[in-house]
């Protein structure tokens, strides 16, 4: 599985480009110093670190068909992520991985696919979207329901139109906006009715704040989507990333090893227990 020295040994990567997406979020493109391609499946994550600033799990947001570039979209929320976001071209970062269970791209063939994303949750879904669009003819409707805090917090705004032209129905909403915003204002659940989904024929892939996913899933269930066809990417305190340390326990599972992508019905019971 791991061609390099093993999953616990970080590999050096060089930052080849850095783009600021929002006030606190950057997208970095990295290349392995070894020159080796970084093969991954949509939905997987790496353990990423800037030397001396700690290591954090970050979902891969790049194109799975372009393994020569490892792409991460990172929100600066603490010491480690601030150091990563500050790394400009030429700087080196350390990478372990890829880790975790991917999105069910193959299992969804023949169905409509609904991508329900909130905030930076679009980043882990971007590889899935790119893979689905490459295999466009294998799916029914491809629908993106994307909610963000405000228009200036939307990720990849330049790509949304390109995805639309390739066959993705893009529905965007923000929680609040000024009068110059001509799009939808309201919570992401309100998009479900507008998109007129065929719930029974849909597979859902969702990523975003946990409370947003709970509301979105409830609305999608009301629209007829079966719970075992809903998949969500979960976030917990992942540290070793190989199922040893136990920090990312979710009920009887470990998010780094058994997730981050879960079938909703397997994760949901644990989400309702406050102590978990």
């Amino acid at each position: 599985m791991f061609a390099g020295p093993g999953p616990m040994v970080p590999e050096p990567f060089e930052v080849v480009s850095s783009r600021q997406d929002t006030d606190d979020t950057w997208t970095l493109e990295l290349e392995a110093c070894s020159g080796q391609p970084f093969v991954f499946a949509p939905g997987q994550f790496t353990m990423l670190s800037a030397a001396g600033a700690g290591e954090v799990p970050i979902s891969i947001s790049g194109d799975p068909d372009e393994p020569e570039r490892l792409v991460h979209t990172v929100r600066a929320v603490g010491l480690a992520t601030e150091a990563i976001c500050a790394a400009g071209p030429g700087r080196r970062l350390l990478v372990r991985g890829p880790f975790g269970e991917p999105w069910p791209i193959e299992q969804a063939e023949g169905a409509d696919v609904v991508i329900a994303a909130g905030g930076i949750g679009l980043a882990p879904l971007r590889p899935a979207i790119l893979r689905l669009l490459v295999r466009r003819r294998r799916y029914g409707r491809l629908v993106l329901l994307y909610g963000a805090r405000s228009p200036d917090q939307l990720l990849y705004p330049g790509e949304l139109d390109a995805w639309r032209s390739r066959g993705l129905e893009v529905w965007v909403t923000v929680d609040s906006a000024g009068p110059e915003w001509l799009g939808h204002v309201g919570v992401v659940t309100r998009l479900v009715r507008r998109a007129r989904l065929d719930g029974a024929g849909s597979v859902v892939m969702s990523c975003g704040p946990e409370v947003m996913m709970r509301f979105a899933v409830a609305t999608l269930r009301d629209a007829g989507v079966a719970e075992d066809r809903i998949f969500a990417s979960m976030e917990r305190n992942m540290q070793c990333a190989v199922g040893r340390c136990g920090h990312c326990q979710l009920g009887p599972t470990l998010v780094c090893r058994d997730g981050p992508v879960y079938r909703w019905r397997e994760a949901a019971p644990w989400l309702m227990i406050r102590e978990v």
Partner: protein
Amino acid sequence: MQRIEELISIAPVFEGLASEHLALIARCGHNERVPAGTMLLREGQPAERFFLIRRGSVAVEVHAPGRGTLVIETLHAGDPVGLSWLFAPYRWQFDTRAVEPCELVVFDGACLRGKCEEDHELGYQLMSRFVANVISRFQATRFQLLDVYGHA
């Protein structure tokens, strides 16, 4: 050209009403087209009429000193615009503005309240549907207040 009762019968807020009730409601409404930017309702003004969007979208807004105009919610085809016509003191709480050219059914609120007084079955049926709409928007507002993306 479709009659108003046909136009409104497919909106969730009127869906499933008996044809005689749809006809009564339709007598209080007329069609109107408005260009983008039209202010439909203004905060503090008497809530004398409300709208059903047939085409286009409408922003519910509030003006906050120092922050400018904030859009709170966007409404689309099939949505009713305006709830304050239902209850005293019948004054709008927010501004609403057509975001794009809109086709609307405009209802006289006092006319419809009068019909509900005369026919309590109509009043009950109409109130049930509007309450469902209010609950849905109320729950969405609570979700919005969580500011989930700000604290992710």
